[in-house]
């Protein structure tokens, strides 16, 4: 580690001190704040890990397609398998906070949109959070764009209602939602109630005749069949297509013939090629499982199923959903809370009614961001990344250039749409779901890969064009 300016160290301590203060003071008010603190400190850990490992889902397939670098695919698979392992413990108790998502082609379509968006924006949903902690203005713009797009997208009705297929509308009306939701007004409402809710909810354990809440189902069904095997297949594909060629070339340079053993070594070399990423993946996987464990323990202790009950007991009733709930996944999540703070702000300041849609009004609510558990997580994630960046002397305020600002807004828009269609982002819809043995996570992942490919194709063309301009004055043959 190089010498780090004193200013950086001081700022790092100030940030940590702030979170410590928030935790201690809020705990002084009421024991229930432990629940919010759990979100806060796990968010902080995620931020530290993400920054340390330059852990960005966007770069996984993008860098593979664009420059042939597999390190992030590897890192993500390590994290997913480990997270799968730690959460299998929690799942086996039958007390997991996880709810599988409906499985259908919508997850893949959403993944494609999300994948294109994250290549354009230069970062996925979680990546943009940690890069904001590095002082990156472009990433902050991406977050703003994702947030506003989501909040708007879940509420648009009017002309967009005409785009709703009739069967969705009819099916949505039969769901018996309260009048306040006004289900026939709003594209997303009818998409959710009329289509997504009708799709099957699957787990690998159940698909193979086991039960998720048993040791057998959690470890063999969900973890081994649902996570380890697909992850290995994916890594093998990456090795065969991108890594093998270079590895074989290196060996043949030494004048040896390539054996099976060399391939095994090559495969392992690919796994450990970026130590930082692998280590971050390791800690992320463990932390994600621990968070589920802690949140579930706290729920049992306080006798609640959702943080909405705690907020109500604390006297904060504004923005609770019609069911009295707020967004409280119990695990790592990024996009929903981003939509929530925009929803809260727009409703408070501009009087826009957001509670008449399913997303806010029926499920997630729009609590004051100051008391929104998931928002504590996101803010702490930025803080954790900032601390890490400061202590490694990598923190730098960067104003977005006009070109990048445009990419950021377009990318954020695509990611916002994609994450609402899939009910989650690269974390909530892919990472968490795959690790829990939910096949819809892999469907979203496939979409992300496809989207990344399209995004890279575009950027390759764009970069070629710009390079050609720059090099025009030089003596290159183009």
């Amino acid at each position: 580690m190089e010498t780090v300016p004193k200013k950086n160290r001081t700022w790092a301590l100030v940030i940590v001190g702030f979170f410590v203060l928030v935790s201690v003071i809020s705990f002084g008010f009421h024991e229930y704040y432990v629940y919010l603190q759990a979100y806060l400190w796990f968010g902080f850990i995620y931020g530290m890990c993400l920054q340390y490992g330059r852990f960005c889902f966007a770069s996984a397939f993008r860098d593979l397609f664009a420059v042939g670098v597999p390190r992030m695919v590897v890192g993500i698979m390590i994290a997913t398998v480990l997270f799968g392992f730690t959460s299998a413990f929690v799942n086996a108790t039958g007390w997991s906070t996880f709810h599988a998502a409906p499985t259908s082609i919508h997850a893949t379509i959403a993944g494609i949109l999300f994948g294109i968006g994250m290549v354009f924006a230069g970062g996925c949903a979680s990546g943009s959070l940690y890069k904001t902690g590095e002082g990156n203005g472009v990433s902050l713009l991406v977050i703003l764009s994702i947030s506003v797009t989501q909040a708007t997208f879940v509420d648009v009705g009017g002309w967009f209602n005409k785009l709703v297929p009739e069967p969705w509308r009819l099916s949505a009306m039969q769901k018996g939602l309260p009048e306040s939701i006004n289900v026939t007004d709003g594209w997303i409402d009818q998409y959710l109630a009329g289509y997504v809710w009708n799709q099957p909810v699957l787990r690998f354990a159940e698909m193979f005749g086991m039960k998720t809440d048993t040791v057998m189902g959690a470890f063999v069904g969900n973890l081994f069949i649902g996570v380890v095997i697909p992850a290995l297949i994916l890594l093998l594909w990456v090795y065969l297509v991108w890594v093998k060629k270079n590895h074989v070339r290196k060996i043949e340079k030494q004048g040896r013939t390539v054996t099976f053993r060399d391939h095994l070594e090559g495969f392992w070399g690919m796994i450990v090629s970026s130590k930082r990423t692998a280590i971050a993946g390791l800690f992320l996987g463990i932390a994600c499982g621990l968070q589920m464990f802690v949140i579930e323990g706290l729920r049992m202790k306080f006798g609640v199923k959702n943080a909405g009950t705690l907020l109500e007991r604390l006297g904060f009733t504004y923005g609770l959903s019609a069911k009295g709930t707020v967004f409280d996944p119990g695990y790592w999540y990024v996009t929903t809370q981003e939509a929530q703070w925009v929803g809260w702000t727009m409703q408070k300041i501009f009087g826009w009614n957001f509670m008449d849609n399913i997303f806010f009004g029926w499920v997630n609510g729009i609590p004051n961001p100051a008391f929104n558990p998931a928002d504590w997580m996101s803010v702490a994630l930025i803080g954790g990344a900032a601390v890490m960046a400061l202590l490694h002397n990598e923190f730098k305020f960067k104003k977005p250039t006009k070109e990048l600002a445009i990419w950021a807004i377009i990318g954020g828009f695509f990611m916002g749409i994609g994450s609402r269609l899939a009910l989650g982002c690269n974390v909530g819809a892919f990472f968490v779901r795959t690790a829990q043995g939910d096949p819809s996570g892999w469907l979203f992942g496939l979409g992300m890969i496809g989207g990344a490919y399209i995004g890279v194709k575009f950027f390759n063309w764009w970069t070629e064009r710009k390079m050609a301009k720059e090099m025009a004055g030089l003596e290159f043959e183009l």
Partner: protein
Amino acid sequence: MARTYLWIVIIIVMAFLGFMIGYAVPPFMEVGFGGGEQIESGGAPVDEELKKEFEQLYQIEEGSTESE
């Protein structure tokens, strides 16, 4: 030098983590692992010694967070 600061940060984070895990473990002990359908209203019997240990865990952790 920066490494020392990093360790300070890590220790603070671990302290809070330990505090929260201390909160979350006892309820899990009552429920037990392996099979959600086996949960009984009273929960599984908890060893006296273990109970005491967790009570003390709370005291130590609360003390340490207040001093920070």
